[in-house]
């Protein structure tokens, strides 16, 4: 297992270099003078010269790339042009929101998807099976932002006043919010990586609630995240349900299942011992593949539900020409995606020992 992981990590290095290249190139490839792009049209040649010196743009492009990598390694992602704050701070504040949304959506899509898939497979060709497959087809065909808007309308307007009404936007109700751990614990002189980690943990509502005991805010946040999680998770749920169904059907047709039943094994034992582990392999693969869709869906849904995550910040940064933020956020999302894929590969290798030999 360790060998498998180390081999995967080594293969990851060229991919990481490529990701860094692409994010580096994003800003450099924008047509027009970067000085004018970043400082505005009124920048004088003297200001531009100073700007170029400061950001090392007069150096060789390879040197610039080297500086870029060194800066990233040290945690310096640049300064936001719009907010004048380090991009790292913005990441620490906004990434937890996106992670919460992605995790919420993943929990919903996996539980609902696998559940529906199992029920469909075991009750093959019943009305439930047909209905589930039709809904699954519809599910993968609808735009995620449309689903979010429709759900918001349904739960906020049509079901308004009922016990199951849900708030349609924002992360918390007005007036509520998460307290920074630095403030609550009254820490002094916190900088660098420590500050990043503390800010990050403060912005994750679950860890914040556990560490500061702020349960009412946590529950409020939970209420606000249910609807976006369902919106983001429905489409992957549809794919997972389909793959679960076909995977279980395929395993049920295998010889070893027939042998187990012929031996007289209880059906529940057949399912748990033989069917589930083998059926899980394609399911885990698809969950990994769908994580990309979950991340993209999170980016889109955040704008629909006005959640303060990476998605809204990224879109605003692109439209507002805040290039360091675009660069930093793209890099972070790509890194998260790569990391999640690595975990999925590892769990895949754990479930199917044959993969470890590859």
């Amino acid at each position, binding site marked *: 297992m360790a060998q498998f992981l180390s081999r995967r990590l080594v293969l990851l290095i060229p991919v990481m270099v490529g990701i860094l290249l692409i994010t580096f190139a994003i800003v450099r490839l924008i047509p027009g003078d970067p000085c004018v792009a970043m400082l505005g049209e009124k920048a004088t040649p003297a200001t531009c010269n100073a700007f170029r010196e400061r950001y090392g743009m007069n150096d060789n492009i390879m040197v610039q790339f080297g500086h870029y990598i060194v800066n990233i390694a040290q945690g310096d992602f640049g300064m936001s042009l719009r907010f004048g704050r380090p991009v790292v701070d913005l990441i620490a504040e906004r990434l937890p929101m996106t992670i919460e949304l992605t995790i919420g959506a993943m929990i919903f899509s996996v539980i609902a998807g696998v559940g529906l898939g199992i029920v469909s497979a075991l009750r093959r060709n019943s009305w439930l099976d047909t209905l589930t497959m039709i809904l699954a087809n519809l599910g993968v065909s609808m*735009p995620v932002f449309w689903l979010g808007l429709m759900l*918001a309308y349904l739960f906020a307007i049509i079901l308004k006043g009922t016990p199951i009404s849900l708030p349609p936007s924002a992360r918390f109700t007005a007036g509520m919010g998460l307290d920074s751990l630095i403030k609550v614990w009254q820490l002094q002189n916190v900088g660098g990586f420590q500050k990043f980690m503390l800010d990050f943990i403060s912005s994750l509502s679950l860890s914040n609630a556990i560490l500061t005991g702020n349960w009412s805010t946590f529950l409020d946040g939970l209420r606000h995240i249910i609807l976006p999680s369902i919106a983001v998770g429905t489409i992957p749920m549809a794919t997972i349900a389909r793959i679960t169904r076909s995977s279980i059907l395929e395993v049920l047709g295998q010889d070893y299942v027939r042998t187990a039943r012929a031996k007289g094994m209880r059906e529940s034992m057949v399912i748990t011992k033989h069917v589930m582990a083998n059926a899980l392999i394609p399911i885990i693969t698809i969950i990994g593949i769908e994580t990309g869709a979950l991340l993209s869906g999170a980016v889109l849904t955040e704008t629909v539900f006005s959640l303060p995550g990476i998605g809204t910040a990224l879109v605003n940064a692109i439209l507002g020409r805040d290039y360091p933020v675009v660069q930093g956020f793209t890099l972070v999302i790509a890194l998260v995606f790569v990391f999640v894929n690595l975990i999925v590969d590892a769990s895949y290798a754990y479930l199917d020992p044959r993969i470890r030999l590859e």
Partner: protein
Amino acid sequence: MTDINLSLFGEIPHKRQTPLVEAFSRLIHHRSAQAGMVMLGFLILVAVFAAQIAPYDPIVPIKTAKRRDVPCIHLLGCPAGQPEHFFGIDGNSRDLFSRVVFGSRFSLVIGIVTVSFAIVTGGLVGAMAGYLGGWVDNLLMRCMDVLMAFPSLLLAIAIVTVLGPGLINALLAIGIVSIPRFARLIRSTVLSVKELDYVTASRAIGVPSMRILFVHILPNAITPLVVQGTLGIATAILDAAALSFLGLGAEKPTPEWGLMMGEERNSVFSAPHLLIFPGLAIMMTVLSFNLLGDGLRDVLDPRLRTE
């Protein structure tokens, strides 16, 4: 040795269908492919005859209409005195039905153009990687890995950041993002066919490589390409709608479905009809391509056939 009198069995009909005809007849009888083809046919008709079907101009505002007015359908009870607007009026006093109808043209073109670009470019990359092998293969496939390391929408957003917003740039971005899928497909076909006897024989008698590639190897890729291409059109339409929704794709006043929803996203509680209909249109279009693609996959993939 007794001769078996074969005439006892009667004339055995010697039906020779070409694989293409056989595949097509299987497709016609496949249930979900039927639904997909009917919907797609309807969509193509709507796109082609948009100018005849749409009662109003999709871009010019109607001066007498109230903005974000609810739909008025005479058959469903709207008083005959009011002008009929099946889907209502949008935020710029334009008839939504006409805009949705013209939007079908954009969506079809977007899907077909992006996937064609991705197939041609990805095909070239995959064919070179598969046929030449060695360091070329390694380098090209690492590049594809890097492209696939980003979630596809995010990479498209990054590309649009560089190129600037606009429909053409959005198409290019989505096309680039779709390249790895087709490159891998063609590469695996080339790899699996490259060492077969008939290819080796062609090489031995001196057939030039280009000819071997295009005439002998690549036709094997047509089946998976058709399936992936159809499904790819569905994804491309969704991605283009997403980019336009965010304001990074089609620009006003283009009647593109995603853009229509992006412009009116804040009216979801006051004028939901402005969002329901373009979204339904996207869903129906993507569904038709998905159903057709699934049907094609069931029909054309020999491994899934149980006969």
